[in-house]
């Protein structure tokens, strides 16, 4: 072990952090090594100065300043009761306003959902119209299915009922298909 390696042990030994066995070895090495004696002496001196600086304290005004800042922050977090009531009232009013908006807005703007129906369904709807005597005159049955525009109106709060409006090339002929969904 060279002296540089001994320095780490001396640094621990200097403040009583070496184990009993290490301390004995370190003492013996210091006794026989001039370089480590110098290092040991300097280590003791620097530790003494460290402790000397530690014996002095910070002025009380600095502690008081910290205390004042902490207490001010804690007290500001404790609003008086009337401020809390005001805050709760504002919160309740905001929630109520949002609920009213949700309840009123969909009625005002009843969205018209568009649904493209599969061809088979369209044909069935056309067939149903034919059966009721409402088939457009001169317009082939399949033509209605391909070219017709289908609209599904989903009435608000009646999600179970589907109304399909089938427009044909003949503006005088409009077919309505009403379906009612039961269960999933």
């Amino acid at each position, binding site marked *: 072990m060279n002296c540089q390696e001994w*320095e*780490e*042990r001396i*640094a*621990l030994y*200097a*403040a009583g*952090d070496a184990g009993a066995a290490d301390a004995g070895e370190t003492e013996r090495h210091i006794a026989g090594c001039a370089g480590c004696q110098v*290092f040991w*002496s*300097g*280590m003791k*001196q*620097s*530790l003494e*100065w*460290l*402790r*000397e*600086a*530690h*014996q*002095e*304290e*910070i*002025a*009380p005004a*600095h*502690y008081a*300043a*910290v*205390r004042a*800042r*902490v*207490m001010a*922050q*804690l*007290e500001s977090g*404790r609003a008086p009761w009337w401020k809390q009531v005001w805050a709760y009232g504002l919160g309740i009013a905001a929630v109520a306003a949002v609920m009213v908006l949700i309840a009123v807005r969909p009625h005002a703007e009843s969205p018209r959902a568009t649904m493209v129906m599969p061809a088979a369904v369209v044909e069935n709807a056309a067939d149903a119209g034919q059966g009721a005597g409402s088939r457009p005159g001169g317009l082939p049955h399949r033509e209605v299915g391909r070219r017709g525009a289908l609209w599904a109106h989903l009435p608000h709060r009646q999600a179970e009922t589907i109304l399909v409006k089938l427009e044909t090339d003949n503006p005088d002929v409009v077919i309505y298909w009403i379906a009612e969904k039961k269960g999933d």
Partner: protein
Amino acid sequence: MNVLALLAIAAPVESPGGGARSIAAARAGDLAAFESLMRQHERLVLVTAARLLGKLEDAQDASQEVFLRLYRSLGKIDAVENLPGWLYRVTVNVCHDITRKRPASVPVDELPELAATGADPQQSAARAERRRALQMSLRFLSEKERAAMVLRDLEGLSTAEVARALGSSEATVRSQISKARIKVRAFMERYFRSQL
């Protein structure tokens, strides 16, 4: 560098059991009790923070944050005996956060010209110079070395207590302390070449 102005002041003494009563009352929302708790531990927090950060203004910011965290964590501290360890741990963490946000104002490559001050006839001036050198030497340690040395050599904690506060093993702490002492000694030797 802002050198700490230190004065000799005795810390307030708390009667046995007073800490436990203060914690219980503070938990119940008694701000006066919390202020009393702060008075009992403010030296520990502010001095440790000052040693770690080297600037009193930063140390006061750190102390404020530590005590605010203490107030929010009162319910988690189960025994008053655990409070100093908790405070040391949080102080070190808060100081690390501050150090990361505010890098050292005197980087290693901008070290000032080191002057030998052995000729200074005034003993108080010599002490002030040593304090300044000590603060500078602590700045050139790594965060963990500085924390280990401050807690062990300045605060007087045992190696096991330092290990708990830093969340390290005792072997790691011993290694950090050893390296820190060697670096500080080398710095002080360089600073006071004529005295060591």
